[in-house]
């Protein structure tokens, strides 16, 4: 894992003290809320429905146990005993007090964490593959590139006031586990004739105008990648619309001028940027990469698992994934208990996961965009012990990628932008499909719920998506089918008129039962929908 140098630490510490002074002046009435709001947002502090909400950055979703324990400590000391892991691989706290926030940030800085650039029209937390460094299918570890981009984008003077927020994802495998093409910029590291570089996609995103990012460059050499991304941002910063917030994202620019025109302008800008010496010397990149060297795996680790405990075997099949190193596995902890709140974890549970990372996973954890947690490097010989400890902490739900592994935004229960509640719908669907045998028979089904058109719950990318809207003051839920955030990326389509809360749960069940009726061998819900189209599902739902 990357460790701060004295420069990293000093700028984070300085930002804490700067914010402490800003808070002091706000509380003393020396600055108005209009003056203060952009300052607090730059430090990740929102004012939500019930209280201030703090979004803490988890760079590319990677943490060590010391940092995870700090998140638990913050939940206990400054919040109400829990945190909410988000689709940006971050964590949010819902009950922060303004006057305590500077002390909180100082404690975070003590473990090399902060909330900088988790809001505002800047480059947000770089996201990545939660299995980076562990999965056999990657051509390189994407984390050093994500870290390089983090350093480049932190306090970048030219990109601190972009037309709108900006999200970048880096992956390194054909299987997309980070919804890469639904980002403003998506980078897929690839090798061409043995040379490392990146496929660059620009102009994807969800929100009110969902778009899949077109490929802007099929191969940018690794040593040019930062300059190329800088050029992509420069063209956007110059021509992105600032007159209309709804048309300010880069996806609108790329769509309006066309991918070819945008590509040509980036090429022209790149030729100029490349003369500026932005790309780091290889020695610096090697320094960063060294932090992500593989841990000291045991060469002779036992490569088999005792499956005699049936409950353990189910969890093993569903939540444990192959590791590139023989004798090791990737453990996925689904934060989706039946009837629980997707992505929420109590302080005690956060501590348990931190301890497990320390004891069994080379002190590493990952947050996933599906609001789950990963222990990336667990010896197969330790899997049963890990499962038992997860089970004791109510963290062993064996539902990864199943219909109850639901992504849901905080919705109207917490968010001031939301039009409808998301969490109660997720809870009712999970309860309806609580039978694990039924879930496993249904198979992979990604269900995603947003409480408003901003799509924080990624409903556009759901095999089944649910969008909460306000219909004359009443919560109403639209169903979309056929979305995907994976390598077979697609945007879901609205299936028909909306439903009330109970009605949408019934409709989901009818659609899934129709799928079970018409599917062919090995087809997922998404595959069947793509094969047969919407009509059979409409008939089932609206009959």
């Amino acid at each position, binding site marked *: 894992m990357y460790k701060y140098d004295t420069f990293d630490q000093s700028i984070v510490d300085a930002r804490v003290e700067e914010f402490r002074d800003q808070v002091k002046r*706000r*509380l003393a*009435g020396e600055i108005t*809320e209009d003056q203060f709001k952009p300052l607090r947002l730059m430090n990740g502090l929102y*004012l939500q*429905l*019930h*209280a*201030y909400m703090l979004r803490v950055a988890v760079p590319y979703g990677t943490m060590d146990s010391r940092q995870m324990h700090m998140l638990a400590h913050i939940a206990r000391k400054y919040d*109400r005993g829990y945190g909410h892991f988000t689709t940006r691989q971050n964590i949010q706290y*819902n*009950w*922060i*007090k*303004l*006057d305590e926030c500077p002390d909180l940030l100082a404690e975070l800085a003590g473990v090399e964490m902060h909330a900088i650039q988790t809001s505002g029209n800047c480059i947000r937390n770089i996201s990545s593959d939660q299995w980076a460094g562990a999965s056999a299918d990657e051509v390189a570890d994407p984390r050093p590139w994500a870290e390089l981009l983090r350093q480049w984008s932190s306090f970048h003077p030219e990109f601190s006031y972009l037309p709108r927020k900006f999200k970048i994802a880096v992956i390194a495998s054909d299987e997309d586990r980070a919804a890469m093409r639904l980002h403003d910029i998506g980078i897929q590291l690839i090798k061409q004739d043995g040379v490392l570089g990146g496929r660059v996609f620009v102009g994807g995103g969800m929100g009110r105008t969902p778009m899949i990012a077109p490929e802007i460059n099929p191969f940018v050499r690794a040593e040019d990648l930062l300059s190329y991304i800088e050029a992509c941002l420069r063209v956007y910063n110059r021509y992105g619309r600032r007159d209309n917030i709804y048309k300010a994202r880069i996806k609108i620019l790329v769509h309006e001028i066309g991918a070819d025109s945008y590509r040509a302008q980036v090429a022209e800008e790149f030729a100029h940027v490349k003369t500026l010496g932005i790309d780091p010397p290889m020695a610096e990149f090697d320094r960063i990469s060294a932090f992500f060297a593989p841990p000291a795996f045991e060469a002779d680790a036992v490569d088999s698992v005792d499956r005699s405990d049936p409950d353990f075997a189910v969890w093993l099949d569903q939540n444990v994934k192959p590791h590139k190193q023989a004798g090791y596995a990737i453990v996925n902890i689904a934060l989706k208990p039946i009837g629980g*709140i997707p992505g929420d974890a109590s302080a005690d549970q956060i501590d348990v996961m931190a301890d497990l990372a320390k004891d069994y996973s080379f002190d590493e954890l990952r947050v996933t965009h599906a609001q789950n947690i990963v222990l990336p490097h667990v010896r197969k010989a330790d899997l049963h012990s890990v499962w038992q400890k997860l089970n004791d902490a109510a963290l062993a739900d064996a539902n990864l990628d199943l219909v109850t592994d639901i992504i849901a935004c905080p919705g*109207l*229960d*917490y968010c*001031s932008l*939301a039009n409808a*509640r998301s*969490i*109660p719908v997720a*809870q009712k669907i999970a309860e309806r499909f609580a039978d694990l045998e039924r879930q496993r028979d249904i198979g992979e089904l990604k269900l995603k719920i947003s409480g408003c058109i901003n799509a924080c719950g990624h409903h556009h990318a759901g095999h089944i998506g649910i969008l909460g809207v*306000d219909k004359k*003051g*009443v*919560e109403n839920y639209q169903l979309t089918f056929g979305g995907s955030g994976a390598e077979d990326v697609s945007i879901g389509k609205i299936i028909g008129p909306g439903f009330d*809360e109970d009605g949408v749960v019934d409709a989901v069940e009818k659609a899934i039962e129709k799928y079970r009726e018409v599917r062919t061998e090995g087809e997922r819900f998404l595959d069947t929908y793509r094969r047969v189209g919407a009509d059979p599902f409409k008939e089932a739902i609206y009959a």
Partner: protein
Amino acid sequence: MNLLTGNDLASGDVVWWNGKGWSRQIGDAADVGDRGAIILAAEEAARRVNASYEIEADTSGLPLHIKDRVRAAGPTVRADLSVNPSIQIVKG
């Protein structure tokens, strides 16, 4: 009736104008009639409230908009954190 609500500046807690000051219970809220804008301007200037606004409520004092009913009640999915669990979120 017309009610005033906002957040406490330091704590962020949801507060309701009770005619003299700000209460954390919507049950204490007072009908401000047509004086809302004047009260809010004075209270914001004195930093006794943040992000304040006026809402409409029915004759029982229940906010007409669901968002304000959730603000008054607390998160509907965490009964342990509810300020006022008796508030009816979805009108029958």
